[in-house]
């Protein structure tokens, strides 16, 4: 079913919002979405929470932070638990973005669990990646920046109502000043819940990046590739690996394992070569 959906997708701008726990991602998404809905956008939100690795259970707490700004706005919001899937990105979120895209939403926010690999994973899905930072992160910020600074498209310093936020702002500005020639010039904006007009500049910046992606024909590209990769991996497992494993004779003491491996391996690669020789486009 998903493969059919991909025919209809690639119009929406998927915006990944990532950053350390408690920095204000949900609050920000709630406020920004509500403004964008007023501007005539069709907005959907996927918010991913961490599952407990022990019980599999989770408290899906993001919704509660957005609820107020979303009420009566006709914005679709769905909470997902990451269920320990690759990094923090719930495996179903790739399918969900495809469905939402096909359903005609033009802007899809994805909030990720603010932790390590999860933050990197969102970038496999998003057309635009926004890294939210703020005051008082101290050394934590260095750890976060290590992996993600390179790949983020836009930066936000949230909680600008707090005095020390200017240091955080300055820090990012200094880093961005060292950006080499990039096709898209990266920028940082300050936001605060105390002054909702600050969200307007973020909206403008996200739109700017969205246009850049559209004009360069790259909107939806990463999602398409990732969806294809997962589809192929599943197919390979179901059609090739699993059946081959089943064909290994149960009583294989008589046989030499290495001979078996060689036979199966040869069968596999011969047929694979046939597939790979075919031209795709």
């Amino acid at each position, binding site marked *: 079913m998903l493969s059919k959906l991909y025919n209809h997708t690639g119009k929406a701008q998927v915006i990944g919002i990532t950053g350390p726990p408690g920095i204000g991602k949900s609050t920000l998404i709630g406020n920004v979405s509500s403004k964008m809905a007023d501007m005539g956008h069709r907005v959907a939100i996927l918010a991913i929470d961490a*599952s407990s690795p022990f019980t599999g259970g989770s408290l899906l707490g993001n*919704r509660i932070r957005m609820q107020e700004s979303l009420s009566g706005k006709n914005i679709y919001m769905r909470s997902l638990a990451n269920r320990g899937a690759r990094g923090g990105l719930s495996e179903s979120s790739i399918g969900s973005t495809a469905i939402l895209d096909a359903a005609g939403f033009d802007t899809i926010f994805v909030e990720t669990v603010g932790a390590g690999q999860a933050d990197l994973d969102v970038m496999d899905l998003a057309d635009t990646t926004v890294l939210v930072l703020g005051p008082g992160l101290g050394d934590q910020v260095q750890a976060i920046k290590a992996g993600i600074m390179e790949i983020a498209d836009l930066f936000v310093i949230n909680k600008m109502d707090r005095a020390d936020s200017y240091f955080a702002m300055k820090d990012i500005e200094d880093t961005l000043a060292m950006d080499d020639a990039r096709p898209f010039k990266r920028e940082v904006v300050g936001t605060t819940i105390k002054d909702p007009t600050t969200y307007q500049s973020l909206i403008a910046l996200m739109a700017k990046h969205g246009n850049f992606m559209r004009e360069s024909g790259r909107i939806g590209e990463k999602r398409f590739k990732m969806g294809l990769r997962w589809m192929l991996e599943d197919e390979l497992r179901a059609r090739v690996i699993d059946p081959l494993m089943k064909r290994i004779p149960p009583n294989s003491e008589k046989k030499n394992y290495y001979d078996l491996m060689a036979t199966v391996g040869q069968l596999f690669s011969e047929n694979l070569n046939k597939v790979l020789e075919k031209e795709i486009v």
Partner: protein
Amino acid sequence: MVDGKNRSLFKDKPIKILLAKPGIDGHDRGVFVLAKAFRDAGMEVLYAGLLPTPEEVVDTAVNEDVDVVALSLLNGAHMTVFKKVADLMKQRGIDDIALVGGGTIPDEDKPSLEAMGISGNYGPGTPLSVIIEHVTRRAEEARLKKLR
């Protein structure tokens, strides 16, 4: 304690439950105790926030595609507020989301709540394991309907 995760129906997709105290009832603490207990039993738990309207409860339940909505009230307004939620679900043709109730509900009201499809209706002091077992059973019914 029943582990929702271990029942095969919920192996890949745990029970998703929405906790709501609709209407005019400002007590919050009990909900958080329940939320944590459900989470520890392996469920994905959503909280609808303070004082959602019945419409908001149903909208959230549908958008989030939950298996169970747990309604609770301590102020005696259950017969009107719970009924409103059940009616809205019926009007919108939703039969794959189970409704359970809780709070201070007099025994004589329970049969009519049951007739609306709102089961459980446990009072304060009910062992958490009893509540979790009941929710799991209702979630199974709902999940089977979603899969049909």
